[in-house]
């Protein structure tokens, strides 16, 4: 196979980054973290909104509707990770990621168990209402979900 190599080049960004001026990395990181922290409230609202959208989904009756539902589930789960991730809501991210895996698997296997979606949504709703201090209860939610997923796909496999 023909390989065309374009010579190494220095990007404008590379020249810029070492030019005079700028700021210390420590200062840049502190400012970035402060900027992100200001969006905390908005992030929680986004998470709640997307969980609400998932909960409102109806089980589809046609193959076309099923494909569209799976696309929307995947998109909402992605947006939950986007919104929850920066604020340390790791357990919510993990459940949303598990949901993405389920949809991905469904696309490959042409089947989707809607009960799994319901369990994920209930887990997300529960995690979203439990206080951050309820560490044990939060752990129990994710552990039970993981066990259920493992059992389900253990049987299927």
């Amino acid at each position, binding site marked *: 196979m*023909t*390989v065309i190599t374009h010579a190494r080049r220095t990007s404008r960004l590379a020249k*810029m980054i070492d030019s005079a001026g*700028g700021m210390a990395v420590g200062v840049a990181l502190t400012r*970035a*973290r402060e900027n992100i922290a200001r969006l905390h409230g908005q992030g929680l609202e*986004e998470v709640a909104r997307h969980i609400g959208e998932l909960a409102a989904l109806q089980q589809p009756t046609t193959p076309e509707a099923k494909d569209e539902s799976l696309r929307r589930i995947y998109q909402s789960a992605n947006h939950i990770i*986007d919104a929850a991730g920066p604020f340390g809501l790791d357990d919510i991210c993990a459940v949303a990621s598990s949901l993405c895996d389920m949809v991905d698997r469904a696309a490959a296997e042409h089947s989707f168990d809607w009960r799994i979606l319901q369990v994920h949504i209930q887990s997300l709703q529960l995690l979203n209402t439990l206080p951050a201090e309820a560490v044990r209860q939060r752990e129990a939610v994710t552990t039970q979900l993981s066990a259920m997923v493992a059992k389900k796909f253990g049987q299927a496999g």
Partner: protein
Amino acid sequence: MSTVGEALRDTAIINLTGAVTMVVDDSAFSAEITTSALLGFGIRTRHSCRSAPEAMQILAETEIDLLVIDCEMPGMDGFEMVQWLRRSGPPNAFVPVIMTAAHIRRSMVNRARNCGANYIVTKPFSASSLLERIVWVARDNRPFLEVGEYFGPDRRFREGQAPGEERRSDRLRLAQFEAEKAATAAAVAAGNAP
């Protein structure tokens, strides 16, 4: 070049103030998170787009210094857009590209590898990991390769030994050449040269 994952020193000075940056993400909130982090680094995002076609219109005419784009978007996704970008010619075909992904479908792993981005960051990302990647892609001076449908930075960017058995053809050829050279030199030294 700093290695991937290498922490930046807090006292190191960086200047990203003039970087013309584009963020492409279908989620307005996710784009806001990214632009807020970039602002902390001194980067005022010039273009924040909600879709690939919107971004492509700008990229066809305006030179940028950094593109941060989400993989998963309705319609044309991030992978497809980066592939287009690499083949788009001046002014932006070689621009540093960081892709962000909340989740990568198994079926998309090859597309992620083959789209031509400099780096893919999985979410949730922290401010420090994003800055590390920006510094890394800024200093990423790998040559660009056109191989079949691929157009992007040379993907063989790991230095040093392969984790298992060496399978890289260029390294195998080099090792064979070195072995033959050493054998010839040994033969000459022993007076057995042909």
